[in-house]
């Protein structure tokens, strides 16, 4: 029982991170129908910014806020200067642009800050004794912090979408861009802001993620598997569904942890393959995902 709970907590912790990145993917997909494969690298880049600020003596919380602002700006600028002009000419090329951004941002990280791993400060206490016992299993404070932070992001995003004029416009653009334009919504601006919000969520997730991600240090390759798992989670839930991203992320995190713990014959290195298998099975059986409405047809 304790072992099961241990694995559950660990799964929910990584699941929460998948939820955050999946939400970032969903916000972009809803508005522009694109899966932003560079999402993980946006987060990594802004994590490097946060790390760099802390080495200059900036408090971590402030560095995190700055990284979110940088993430927002990065999202807006790439949508406006790269994604939108290219989409007009060739829809499929947008995917290549996202992949190009992926390598460009990763390359920029290494070029600016060097290839070696960085020790990243902890936002939350994670000493050996920083835990509460639940049913004999340890729930660490940093896990609790990540649950709370994830819940906060979900709540804020729900408020933004359902209770603000901007959210109304974002939902209108998501369901019918032409009608939104005919009603006077400046669709281009809504797209830019969506990319910005998405990227800011990614930045927030990144700072939470680094201390719990083996090897608990900031390195250039760390975010790629996270992006894959989060994409799988978003697809599982339905790429245009906020609820789907939450359910998909948690299910995926727990499934991964349980597979790791109980299906030891997989040896831990087959996780990525399992993730891909889930993507394929979901797309074959239910192309819109568990909660989604729109098929993935532009990929």
């Amino acid at each position: 029982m304790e072992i099961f709970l241990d694995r559950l907590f660990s799964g929910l912790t990584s699941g929460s991170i998948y939820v955050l990145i999946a939400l970032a993917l969903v916000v972009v997909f809803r508005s522009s129908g694109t899966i932003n494969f560079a999402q993980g690298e946006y987060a990594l880049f802004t994590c490097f910014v946060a790390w760099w600020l802390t080495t200059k003596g900036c408090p971590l919380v402030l560095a995190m806020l700055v990284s979110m602002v940088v993430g927002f700006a990065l999202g807006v600028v790439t949508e406006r200067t790269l994604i939108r002009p290219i989409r007009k000419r060739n829809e499929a090329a947008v995917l290549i642009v996202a992949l190009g951004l992926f390598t460009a941002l990763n390359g920029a990280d290494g070029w600016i800050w060097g290839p070696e791993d960085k020790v990243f400060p902890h936002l939350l206490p994670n000493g050996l004794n920083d835990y509460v016992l639940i049913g004999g299993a340890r729930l660490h404070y940093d896990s609790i912090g990540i649950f709370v932070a994830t819940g906060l992001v979900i709540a804020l995003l729900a408020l933004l979408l359902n209770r603000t004029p901007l959210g109304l416009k974002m939902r209108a653009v998501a369901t019918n861009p032409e009608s939104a334009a005919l009603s006077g919504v400046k669709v281009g601006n809504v797209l830019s802001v969506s990319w910005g919000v998405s990227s800011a969520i990614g930045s927030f997730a990144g700072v939470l993620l680094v201390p719990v991600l083996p090897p608990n240090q900031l390195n250039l390759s760390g975010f790629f598997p996270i992006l894959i798992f989060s994409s799988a989670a978003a697809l599982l839930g339905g790429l245009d569904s906020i609820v789907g991203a939450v359910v998909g992320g948690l299910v995926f995190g727990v499934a991964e942890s349980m597979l790791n713990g109980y299906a030891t014959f997989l040896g831990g290195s087959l996780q990525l393959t399992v993730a891909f298998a889930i993507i394929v099975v979901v797309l074959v059986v239910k192309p819109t995902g568990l909660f989604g409405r729109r098929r993935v047809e532009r990929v």
Partner: protein
Amino acid sequence: MTAVEPREDDEAVLDESALVEAPAPEDLPHDDIRSSGSALLEVRGLRAGYGGATVLHGIDVSVAPSEVVVVLGANGAGKTTLLRAIAGLIPHSAGEILVTGDVVKRARPEEMLRRGIGLVPQGRGTLTDLTVRDNLRVGAVTRKDRSGVSADVDRWCEVFPALAKRRDQVAGTLSGGEQQMLAIARAMMARPRLLLCDEVSLGLAPVVVQGLFRVLRELNAESDTALLLVEQNAELALAIASRVYLLEAGTVAASGATEAFRGNDAIRRAYLGY
């Protein structure tokens, strides 16, 4: 994947027998009302199309304040393209669009709406994932008066009781007729001075269509909203319109007062189909 613009891509197909009897162009009425100063909307020499294909080859159309004008023509004549170009959904390659005498340089939907021109698009353009209420609120995003907006939501729910019952329901679950009511109400939420309506009657039961036209007539009479209607159902449209434009292969083949059209047997047989 197939392109979904069949109405405009189809070649203009007129009944062969009708074509034989069709009057020569010089016999058609051409009372072009060039009321520059007083026109709410004036379109001069408009050319527009999709990609490389030009659909409109120089169109002149004008609408006076609170006037009801109907555009008739066969499939592929360019009716929908004309409305989409006026609403700013597609760019025009030549010609001018004037609103109350001012040339609109960059016709974009939000710009045309700001100048008081709204479009009820063909196929209704329902925001299917949003509730009826949110659909109406989206229609008013250009407005700043919050209390006025919620009063207008109530007003349109009164005009269309079917919408009132489904106010908090997702719009994708509405029937075709209800979605068309919602489309008209959504466009009216911006309080346009001219409403462009593209095939309001398409695919709807006659009794529903009659109800919609009654509402269009009322909103024209009560709120002085001018109407530019594109219609397949010529009889209904002529019943509320004071002037007619007849499009043929992207040009205005004829135009004039409704009575002149009704009275001309050759035109009636050739273009109105009765």
